[in-house]
């Protein structure tokens, strides 16, 4: 993968992280007093919150793999 593509992916990862972080605090994730629709018996905010965490985790994996290639660190030793 070219460096330019990696930089684009890194940028998109940051933008997605920011948008998702903002959406968490909207009624899309935390509707006041509403716990439906349920998923596998889990109330709405809990399963959507879990989904958000899994997305964050996915972004960490993508971010780690791209960041490590763009920004190389000099070895300590």
């Amino acid at each position, binding site marked *: 993968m070219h460096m330019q593509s990696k930089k684009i992916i890194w940028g998109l990862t940051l933008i997605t*992280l920011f948008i998702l*972080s903002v959406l*968490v*605090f909207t009624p899309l*994730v*935390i*509707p*006041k*007093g*509403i*716990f439906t629709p*349920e998923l*596998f*018996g*889990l*109330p*709405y*905010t*809990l399963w959507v*919150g*879990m989904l*958000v*965490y*899994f997305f*964050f*985790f996915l*972004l*960490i*994996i993508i*971010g*780690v793999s791209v*960041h*490590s290639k763009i*920004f190389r*660190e*000099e*070895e*300590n*030793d």
Partner: protein
Amino acid sequence: MIKWFWIFSIGFVLLLVFVSLKAIRKNKSIDDFMLAGSNIGALLGILTYAAALFSAFIFIGVPDFFRVHGVGAWIFLPVADGVMFFMMFWFGFQLRKKAREVGYKGMAGMMSRIFETRWAGYVVFIAAFIFLIPYVAIQIRGISMFFTAIFPNALPPYGWAIVIIGVMIIYSEIGGLKAIIFSDAIQAVLLLTVLAIIGYNSVRYFGNVKELFDQVQQVDASLLSVPGPKNLFTVQFLLASFLAIILLPVTQPQFSSRIVIMKNMKETYKMAAGVGLIAIVVFIATALIGMSGAVRYPGLPTQEFIQNALLFDQAGVIAALAIVGLFAAVLSTSNAQLFALGSEFRSLLSRDEKTNFRWTKIALFVFALIVFVFSTQMSDELVLLARMSFAGTSMIAPIIIVGVISKRKPGIEIIVFSCMSLIVFLLTLFNLIPSVLYNMRVDLSLHTLLFFISILSIFIRKTHIKVSKT
């Protein structure tokens, strides 16, 4: 249960002695002692970071938080932690780069050098001191009360506090950070195992997850959504907590030091992803334990709920493992925090290495004594006190972030405004200033203000642009 308790306790103590001896053999210099040789691999890194993060706060506090305040607790902690793990490697990369340039013994000393004034270091150290000591103390108090309830005829709460602090001082003063990291690894494995089993048992009691939440709905439907039965999870509360939590790798020295001491950046990347993975198990388990408690023990005080959920509802062997796991959790997290404070103190000293080291060891002992005094005086609000600690230290985030990313000396205004914010935040805690002004939480207002001041300072002073000296 008692038989298993003694078996696990003896096993745990023997492991502690073993790792301390192993650490002593590896400590060949003062930096080895204080910074574990800065040679930590991914697996040990994941376990030590997880242990520093998932403490009694997770074991006792978070299940109780779910039980009392409902599913909004998932947004309060796991969601914020998800971004925090991202912050770990992004900020970790910047921090390690800066540490190579200016040297690192502790964040306070590093900031003094970057800002070219000792005041930067003093503010960083004071914030860590003010907000970590009560946090350590509340954990020790929690476990002391817990042990007193289980073994009413053995020791009073202050007696257990002395035992915990005593063990903590002995092995950290002997084995240094390496010993703490090894013990963290034991604790993390114990915690993960116990929480996974108890979380599973919590669902098994109801048959399945759907039945569990159906019963929660019958007990109190407001637990299934925000803001929860006590109206805690407002958008402002969640947002202010989110900001304080994602800044933990920046502002709390037990986390930043664990990033710096990793062998290289490759291992740091693995650490961030690994802790994120462990967190999934930990948070799902704590949520299930808490929601199960909402049905089975809705009106009980925290202490009694935890005793029932972790001990009396479990088979003897699991209950015994939970007691030892909880003891290990408090021990390693408290030790991590206290030792990090010691490192911060050392980084501010300017005498020769041996004298600094001697003073650091004395300081560690004094900090432990202060923790003991506090642990006899604290309230039982573990999660909210932890949140206060996170929010308090987050006020100095601008100093550290701007200091780390700047390519030349940052402006003094960053220190001044961070210090002022810290004071204002403290005044709100003592009710000398309302915690909500003009319908806005003061901590959230301070975060916003500090953000814009930092951006302004960076661009006006052009600290993000490197200029070669002529």
